């Protein structure tokens, strides 16, 4: 039995708590960029991806590639929930001796498919993985999560040309379309509108969803590939910083640490206890 939407929402709440605790513990990181992708990750790892912590390198597994590597902390929280990673390691994030850095390392962390962090790398890599499946007539699928700001990188569009040409209908790119990048709104910097149309004219089957709505996400993921013979692009409209009201849609929080007062407010919203400057 797949978990209910309500159960997944509970997981999402837990993941947000872990993200906040981990990044505050490390003293630096991308809180809002992690918060925007929580529902996407929770949905993928519960009933969509065919992955198994007992065989993290199983050749037949589905591959999830976090191209926006600065969302790594959110992925660690999911991997811990799914048994790829000892949950006790989460709070070592960013500290001396940890395996959990600000960007994920495929050689150190079970379940990490690619060492990402520099933007624009995950989609070409994922296209290669999807192509290998086609060549070897294997049925595994490849999911690549990219940021919308990341789509200003030329290599994304090189791969966007390549994947339809190769008919990679086993490849799905999910765009975390939160409309913000480090220094402000995409529209004010280098706009991508009309964004879904760009992918369409490149030859992708495109669907726009509410990327913070587990039910909508599950529905779309359940109909892949959207068109046989074509790669799929899911434009997931998300809220950057979702779950901490003063971080939502606020570019200044892209890479900023809350002070004790802000930490207290955030903890209250996330359902975490905060005593004497320490998150419980």
């Amino acid at each position, binding site marked *: 039995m797949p978990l209910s939407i309500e159960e997944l929402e509970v997981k999402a709440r837990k993941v947000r708590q872990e993200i906040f605790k981990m990044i505050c513990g490390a003293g630096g990181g991308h809180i809002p960029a992690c918060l925007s992708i929580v529902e996407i990750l929770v949905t993928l790892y519960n009933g969509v991806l065919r992955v198994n912590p007992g065989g993290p390198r199983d050749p037949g597994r589905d591959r999830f590639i976090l191209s926006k590597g600065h969302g790594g902390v959110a992925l660690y929280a999911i991997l811990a929930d799914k048994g790829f990673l000892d949950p006790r390691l989460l709070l070592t994030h960013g500290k001396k001796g940890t395996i959990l850095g600000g960007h994920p390392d495929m050689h150190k962390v079970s379940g990490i498919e690619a060492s990402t962090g520099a933007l624009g790398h995950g989609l070409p890599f994922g296209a*290669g993985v999807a192509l290998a499946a086609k060549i070897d007539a294997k049925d595994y699928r490849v999911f690549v999560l990219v940021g919308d700001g990341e789509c200003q990188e030329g290599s994304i569009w090189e791969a966007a040309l390549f994947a339809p040409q190769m008919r990679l209908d086993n490849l799905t790119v999910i765009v975390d379309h939160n409309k913000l990048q480090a220094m402000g709104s995409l529209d004010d910097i280098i706009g991508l509108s009309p964004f879904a149309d760009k992918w369409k004219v490149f030859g992708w089957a495109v669907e726009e969803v509410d990327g913070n709505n587990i039910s909508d996400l599950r529905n779309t993921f359940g109909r892949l590939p959207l068109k046989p013979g074509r790669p799929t692009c899911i434009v997931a409209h998300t809220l950057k910083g979702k779950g901490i009201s003063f971080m939502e849609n606020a570019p200044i929080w892209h890479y900023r640490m809350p002070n004790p007062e802000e930490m207290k407010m955030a903890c209250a919203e996330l359902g975490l206890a905060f005593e004497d400057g320490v998150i419980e």
Partner: protein
Amino acid sequence: MRNAYLSALYDLAKENKNIMALISDNGAIVYDQYRADFPEQYLNCGISEANMVGVSAGLASCGKIPFAYTIANFIVYRAFEQIRNDVCLQKMNVKLVGIGVGFVYSILGPTHHTTEDIALMRALPNMTIFSPCDPREAKKVTYAAAQINGPVYIRLATGGTPKVYEKDYDFQVGRGVVLREGRDLTMISTGSILLEALQAADQLKAEGVGVRFINMHTLKPMDQAIILKAARETSRILIVEDQNLQGGLGSAVAETLADNAVVCRFKRLGLQDVFTEGYGSYQDLKEINGIAKKNIKDAAKGLLEA
């Protein structure tokens, strides 16, 4: 060298269906036979080098052995971050093959010359670098690259490269080859410019100078023993390369000498922190840029007089 490389790749592809030839829309004609016989192991990625290298890394993560081939400057410079992060950092079994290294595309000008690739590629952890000097050696390094489970960069000249080796020889990864014995001076060179240096060495020999000549076909890992032995036995080393001197073969040899506290007279001949100048034949460019036989002999004589 190009045909020798392709002939080796053909043999490899025939034996192992995981071998894949990726190109970035060049070399199409010379790939005809390969493409006809192994269509499933061939892919033209179009003019998008960053994507080609990223795709190669993804393929390698699934057990494929991609040989990603294009004009050297495009693969090294355009796709450098993909080479660093996707291939070297992730230790992917990808072979990067650059054609036309140095300035063998003499007519095409500095946008098509690759005169800093040794510096860039040897700076990358996990990378092996082969720099064959003739077609026979190009074939050997291609077979060797397939045996290495990890990133390899192969520097190729172009079609019609003259022979250096008349007969077979013992090729070992990471071991330089002494092409001429001598006790007065050692010349070290690599790749397509090596023949020019070797001819200069032979002229010097005819004039009575005992030149030892080393072909450094593997630039990483570099043969330290052969360098230290040469420094101790000949006490003079002249480097001849088709690279900017900042970080090239000469820099690598100098690091070996310094790290081992071995002192000798030392001179590097190459590009003096400039891009190539001029157009014409490959030979013309060697002369215009001061890396022709006359320059090499003058540099050798300068070292001998010092």
